[in-house]
């Protein structure tokens, strides 16, 4: 484990070396932003709406008491979504979608000697391949989480009013009352670190693949497992530090 961590740190050191040509890196960064951000929007959108709707129903079920105002359902849903559900569920889903794809892409480049070809040309392969992915990850995943928060809260409204668990007016009052903007900052910090973890861990797994296509598949699976564990551990640490 320590060997892996050491190699991961050394790889990151190589990633953040000065690029050979910024112009080409910028093009790659924008391409990665489209892949990581725009192409994931649909999946994150669908998941967020349903998670928000289900959360509303569950909170309504658990808070059935005459002593508790119905507006609480909206408040609880809002805070759970902002602080935990949107950042963490989005990150876990993206670890599967983007993480495995990055590991496969870089791993395939490794076993087909494309990375060797880059190095022979005198190009810093970790920087050229991984830096654009990390930059895209730490910028687009916070953006996706922000959208996810909005859609999950909207999903809660649709799910709650459609099932009759809460009225639209109560839900609206719930989500607007007692809102603490700091919770958004917590969500964005989490999203930033999750973006870094997903892109860097998957790049590491792909970059050091040895062997054949079979090993690329294994690296892809390992990426998802490692990223998920790292995301949950980071989630705990950030929550502990910021709340």
């Amino acid at each position, binding site marked *: 484990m320590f060997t892996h961590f050491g190699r991961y740190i050394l790889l990151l050191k190589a990633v953040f070396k000065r690029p050979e040509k910024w112009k080409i890196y910028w093009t790659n960064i924008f391409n990665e932003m489209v892949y990581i951000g725009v192409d994931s929007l649909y999946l994150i959108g669908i998941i967020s709406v349903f998670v928000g709707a289900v959360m509303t129903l569950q909170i309504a079920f658990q808070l059935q008491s005459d002593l508790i105002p119905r507006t609480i359902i909206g408040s609880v849903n809002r805070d759970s979504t902002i602080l935990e559900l949107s950042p963490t569920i989005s990150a876990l889903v993206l670890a599967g979608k983007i993480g495995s794809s990055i590991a496969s892409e870089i791993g395939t480049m490794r076993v087909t000697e494309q990375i060797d*070809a880059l*190095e022979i040309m005198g190009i810093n392969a970790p920087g050229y391949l991984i830096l654009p992915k990390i930059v895209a990850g730490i910028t687009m995943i916070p953006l996706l989480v922000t959208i996810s928060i909005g859609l999950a809260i909207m999903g809660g409204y649709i799910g709650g009013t459609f099932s009759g668990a809460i009225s639209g007016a109560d839900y609206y009052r719930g989500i607007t009352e007692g809102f603490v903007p700091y919770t958004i900052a917590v969500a964005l910090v989490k999203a930033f670190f999750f973006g870094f973890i997903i892109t860097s861990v998957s790049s590491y797994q792909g970059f050091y693949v040895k062997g054949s296509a079979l090993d690329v598949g294994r690296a892809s699976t390992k990426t998802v497992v490692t990223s998920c564990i790292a995301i949950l551990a980071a989630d705990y640490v950030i929550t502990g530090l910021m709340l």
Partner: protein
Amino acid sequence: MIEIKDIHKSFDDNYVLKGISGVFQDGMNNLIIGGSGSGKTTLLKCMVGLHTPDQGSVIYDGRDFTKMNTEERIEIRKEIGMLFQNSALFDSMTVEQNIMFPLDMFTTQSRAEKLERVNFCLERVNLAGKNKLFPAELSGGMKKRVGIARAISMQPKYLFVDEPNSGLDPRTAILIDELINEITDEYNITTVVVTHDMNSVMGIGEHILFLYEGLKEWEGSNKEIAHTDNQQLNDFVFASKFTQAAKDKL
């Protein structure tokens, strides 16, 4: 000229190279031959810096590559072209983008100048007009030729070729050999080819290094190889009844 001195390389307990020395002259096809596992690809990778030798040095025209830091190595690498066994073309790029890539990264040429160079290289490998194809749309022989075009795009002083004929039919293999030979002569490049293809050995082997179990077993030219009495080399080169019969007729 490239000089290698006493190259040693091992992977854990596997001692692959046991002290290999040699000189590879300019404008000459230098072949490294040997059976599977003899260490030829490892030697090639040590020469270009993809592996770090445990001991020994690789000297490019008086510049010791093994003692250089990363930045100094980058300068030497700009003078190196390499054709990989599986061509190693970038899948996500077209033929044109593959060949233009090193020019994009290391030159300040205008797009028109770069395109002119790409078209020249493509013409040189008889693939004019194939600019917009992706590697997946190319045959094995075409991929090798695009690999050569990419390797010569920066006008290298040193060309390294790993198993240029693997997976090719005999006719295409000969075409690739001829192309490597022509380019070496034309641009006075120091070319190092790793192969176990006997047609290459007899066809373009101006200077041959035969490796056996991690050691340099024999050194000479294709003209000398037929008359050698080195048992290991004879067993390797004239392994089939056909080549043995051809040798007997010489």
